[in-house]
């Protein structure tokens, strides 16, 4: 089987799980997917909108491997924020849709890292990669920050984690009140390995905290994308290195070592 495909897939289901949030099953012979990888979806048979939209893989439908996962399709979890995601939300089971992926590099699985040292930090839709990642690190902690009860509900699939799941909301409606960085502050230690996905402000704060504590930290970034495969050079993110200033989120990310990123320019 190819490692990456560009294929017409079948929409299996497209369920509203709460206002503005959907789970979509897309059926195609799925190559291995690493946690943190994404697909590019064509949202309409039209050139308006023109570009595909990137969405992270939430689940792989079907069998599983060890670090990576293949199967007969993927489940996506998305929020309607604009026209592309709105069009996605109107699609019905049975419709076909062009899928390109899986793309990008997932979260790095570092040799010798013990599951117990891993802290996964998610904010809002940044929850997506952790459903796969927690299968890799069954003992990991998952700290999830949400704006309110609706967003906090996204963590329902993670309930089985028991006390290893900690939720915080900005309005205090679920879990503790506050930002997810407050949770992290309590848990972080020198030996922690942090995997984070969420809004830029959160990632910046997490990266800064990891730096202070001397923990390794990997962040998943977002950028508007055209190609998804590293050729348009559109999804650039500035790095701290002098020699090669920009990295491409689609092909060199979306997950980066947090010390690599120029957080001032993000």
């Amino acid at each position, binding site marked *: 089987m190819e490692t990456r495909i560009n294929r017409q897939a079948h929409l299996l289901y497209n369920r509203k799980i709460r206002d503005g949030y959907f789970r979509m099953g897309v059926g195609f012979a799925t190559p291995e997917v690493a946690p943190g990888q994404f697909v590019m979806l064509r949202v309409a048979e039209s050139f308006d909108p023109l570009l595909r939209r990137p969405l992270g893989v939430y689940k792989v439908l079907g069998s599983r491997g060890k670090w990576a996962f293949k199967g007969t399709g993927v489940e996506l979890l998305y929020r309607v924020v604009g026209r592309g995601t709105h069009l996605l939300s109107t699609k019905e089971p049975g419709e076909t849709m062009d899928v390109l992926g899986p793309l990008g590099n997932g979260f790095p699985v570092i040799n010798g890292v013990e599951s117990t040292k891993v802290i996964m930090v998610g904010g809002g839709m940044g929850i997506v990669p952790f459903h796969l990642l927690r299968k890799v690190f069954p003992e990991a902690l998952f700290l999830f920050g949400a704006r309110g009860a609706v967003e906090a509900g996204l963590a329902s699939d993670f309930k089985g984690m028991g006390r290893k799941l900690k939720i915080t909301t900005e309005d205090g409606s679920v879990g503790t009140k506050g930002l997810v960085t407050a949770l992290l502050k309590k848990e972080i230690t020198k030996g922690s390995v942090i995997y984070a996905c969420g809004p830029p402000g959160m990632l910046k704060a997490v990266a800064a905290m990891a730096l202070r504590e001397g923990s390794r930290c990997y962040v998943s970034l977002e950028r508007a994308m055209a190609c998804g495969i590293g050729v348009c050079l559109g*999804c650039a993110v500035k790095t701290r290195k002098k020699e090669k200033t920009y990295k491409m989120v689609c092909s060199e990310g979306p997950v980066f070592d947090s010390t690599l990123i120029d957080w001032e320019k993000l």
Partner: protein
Amino acid sequence: MKKDLSVEIAGVRFKNPVWTASGTFGYGLEFRDFTDLERLGAVVVKGLSLKPRTGNPAPRIVETPCGMLNAIGLQNVGVEAFITEKLPELEKIDTRIVANIFGETVAEYSEVAKRLDGAPGLSAVEVNISCPNVKKGGIVFGTDPKEAFRVVSAVRKAAKRLPVITKLSPNVTDIKVMVKAVEDAGTDAISLINTIPAMVVDVEKRRPVLANAIGGLSGPAIRPVAVRLLWEARKATRLPLIGIGGIMTAGDALEFIIAGAAAVQVGTASFIDPDSAVRVVDGIEGYLGRHRTTLKELTGSLEVN
């Protein structure tokens, strides 16, 4: 019966008239998983400069109605790395490679051309003249016939063995003047169009969306403008023309071919579907069969009242 789609341009025979457009197909290799590179007429690689360039700050792209803007800032690995790292890989693929080049001065253009001349596996250079001349206060080579003449003459001299294709900017009052200028400078062929300068404003932030403010518009939105310019150029020269702009399907490519293009380049479409260019090849083949005609007969067959 398999149709013969091959075309000869500037003394080089290409398998078919469907090429990829510079900056939209990387160095070609990135597409190996998604398309059959050997079915392409040519791969035109990302614009190369003398030194590697890191490109513009982000955001660099934004979607527009039926199009997109880019202000990549011509990020590229530089001509040396291209020759030593990319070209050997590309040579293994049975497809023609065209190097797109640019510079900030006439000397830089000709230096890049010189290095590429004789590089194994290269079939032509395409000169992107839609760049500001830093020595002339930023006047864009491609919008001033005198500057265009100078830069193309210099490349023509530097690239002793390689055919030279000049890629024109659409951002001119009269394309015929530019066609004449680069023809006089000795170009072997002309490709057009490059992107159209454009801007999108973020009305919430009251800032341009792109860090660079202005970017180049590409995609289906610009196709009718590109077809018109190709046709105007056709009437101004007998040089081979290569049509570019918003080609998404074989039908789109045929518009350019019928208007007089010897070949076409597929650009933005490769982002929407990395297999676009090969689908265009298939579609042209189907059209020729259905209409019992040949590429030669079709090219430039536009009838106008």
